[in-house]
């Protein structure tokens, strides 16, 4: 058990930090983009250039043979700078391509293909267990969405029902309407059959979830830092806000939430590097990150007051992103329910193994 990062990981962190600061959204007087991001090809190319897109895949599959630990380093820096990208989506897709041994992975890691998974469905809660898309004769019919970054994607990966079980398909140049992928006897390539799909999806989404949690960690870190800075500099009633103990005690609680999330996210990255199927650790991390993110996101705005609500100031955008992350790849309630179903599998949660 070792939480320290090595010199290569430090170099990666520094490179991505520099990259992220260059591509960070510019706020200031006037309107700014709000809400879900659109794909930015420049940022994406820059990520490809530093090798961030291929980190966790084996070298023989077209990746760089690093692990989820490096992925978390990258995602945290993106989160800290408020840079919104399809990083988590690309990781889910990449993991699936790698598990299928598909050659598209090379294009993905180079950034020339943007591949995203199409997992959500209209009118349905988050679930990996079923899909209303039907597969027949290498064609798919049905509707998936909303699919983040579908508009910009060169390919999507779609779980589809085939003979009553789930299989995974790759669709090139998908038809997208209002963020939804529309499939109407659409030609598709089968990536994985029913025997491999559930396990592959679980592993891929574990990786994507850890990336999201790491992004959330960076986002929380930035929100906490900005809030502390604001309390130090902003004056009210003639004195700095940090004179008000009721505010500083709440900042202390934010910091505690942040540090708990930090430990858990770093551990989760190590855990799935060690065992990609460790969904229980991923669920616990999603719960801790979700709760810390909600706490920090809400308090960051509240302690800033009105300025925190504005698109001209960064902190509200961080809360926006934390809000979205908590509802991506299963929300806190769903991960708790999954963990509750497995309570009897263990006495204590073992960390030191």
């Amino acid at each position: 058990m070792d939480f320290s990062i090595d010199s290569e990981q430090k170099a990666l962190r520094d490179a991505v930090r520099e990259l992220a600061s260059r591509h960070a959204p510019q706020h200031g007087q006037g309107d700014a983009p709000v809400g879900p991001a659109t794909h930015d090809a420049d940022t994406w190319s820059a990520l490809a250039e530093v090798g961030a897109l291929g980190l966790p895949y084996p070298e023989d599959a077209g990746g760089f043979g690093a692990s989820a630990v490096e992925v978390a380093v990258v995602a945290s820096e993106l989160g800290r700078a408020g840079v919104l990208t399809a990083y988590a989506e690309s990781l889910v897709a990449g993991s699936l391509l790698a598990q299928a041994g598909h050659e598209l992975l090379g294009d993905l890691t180079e950034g020339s293909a943007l591949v995203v998974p199409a997992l959500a469905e209209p009118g349905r809660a988050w679930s990996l267990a079923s899909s209303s898309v039907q597969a027949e004769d290498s064609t798919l019919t049905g509707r998936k969405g909303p699919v983040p970054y579908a508009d910009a994607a060169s390919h999507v990966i779609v779980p589809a029902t085939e003979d009553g079980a789930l299989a995974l398909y790759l669709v090139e140049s998908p038809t997208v309407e209002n963020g939804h992928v529309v499939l109407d006897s659409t030609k598709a390539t089968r990536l994985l059959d029913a025997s491999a799909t559930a396990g592959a999806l679980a592993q891929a989404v574990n990786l994507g979830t850890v990336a999201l949690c790491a992004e959330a960690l960076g986002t929380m870190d930035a929100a906490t830092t900005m809030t502390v800075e604001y309390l130090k500099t902003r004056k009210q009633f003639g004195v700095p806000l940090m004179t008000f103990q009721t505010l500083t005690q709440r900042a202390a609680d934010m910091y505690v939430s942040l540090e708990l999330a930090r430990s858990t996210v770093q551990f989760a990255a190590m855990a799935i590097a060690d065992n990609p199927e460790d969904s229980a650790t991923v669920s616990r991390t999603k719960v801790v990150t979700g709760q810390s993110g909600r706490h920090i996101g809400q308090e960051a705005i509240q302690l800033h007051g009105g300025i925190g609500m504005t698109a001209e100031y960064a902190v509200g955008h961080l809360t926006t992103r934390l809000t979205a992350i908590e509802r991506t790849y299963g929300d806190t309630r769903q991960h708790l329910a999954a963990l509750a179903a497995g309570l009897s599998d263990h006495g204590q949660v073992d960390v030191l193994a």
Partner: protein
Amino acid sequence: MQRRLSPDDAAFQQRMRTYFTTEFPADLRERWSAGGEPDPEVIRAAQRRLHEDGLAVPHWPAEYGGQDWTMLQRHIYLQEMQAASVPPPLAFNANMVGPVIAAFGSQEQKDRFLPPTASLDIWWCQGFSEPDAGSDLASLRTTAVKDGDEWVVNGQKTWTTLGQHADWIFALVRTDPDAPKKQMGISFLLIEMSSPGVTVRPIQLIDGGHEVNEVFFDNVRVPADQLVGEENKGWDYAKFLLGNERVGVAPVGSIKRRLAEAKEWAGTVSTDDGTLLDDPLLAARIAELECQVLALELTVLRVAANSREGKPDPASSILKLRGSQLQQDVLELVVDIAGPAGLRWDDTSWEGLAAPTYLNFRKASIYGGSNEVQRQVISSGILGLRG
């Protein structure tokens, strides 16, 4: 103690329900219910219609459109209005500047301003907050200097909600910079937005909307008869305005409507085992929110009966504090119900509006006296804890 409504109040409730659900224009209700950024035309049309029917400003003096209702009846009116998604009368008019002019204005001011204020022929906005003041409202810097029969106003206001639609602004301005306390030396001034020197800059919020604004005053000349009440007494009027209401402080009817909608929506989202409404954790959370909203509504009813009308009232802080918390909790529930569908924002579906609406209402615990200020009012004003 009596749990049931009296026959009179039950009849009143029925009358309100009938009016709001069958007589009030359904298209205005639908456009309001859809959510998203408020449409000024909907607000205008709704308030005109309410005013025609005597229901825009029931708590005002009878001669300006008021009704002689009990606190309970006013609660019923609000509850039924919100339950039916009727756009409420503009708060700046009906609950802020109107009552101030009615209580402290000259007869000329009442006659000039109250009728168009009630009908929304004048759209008012509020000029209280300033960039460097925040919760410390009294340290405002916008000045008004007397020059003959006019005041010359210079300075800047911010967080002026819907100011871009407004015809007039009621503003706190410093008229005596040498007053011994910062709360003294402030006056309450009515300013036409079309006056030369007034500039409005909309501020974008994190949900993408533009409901608040900065308002700049550059040598704006304001006729002296537009100062309400006494010179340098503006702080008293502002306190009256911010704290004299117990009814309507907590948007109970809106919260209940949204919670009922959330249940409906949860019933439409399918899960691997049924719908979200069958999920024990989600259902328990909804049940808990229903308990908490019940407690809030009952508290509104209980304290309203003992209202000290016309005076700043710390009990209203309980309602403001808890009302904003519960409103935020219910809107957060909706984001969870929307789930992955809420990751895409749009202006038309409940899922697409869920996250921006939740984010927008983080303002509820900041604007109009932050939750921290409300706790301060409770601890000092009710509990006598003075630090």
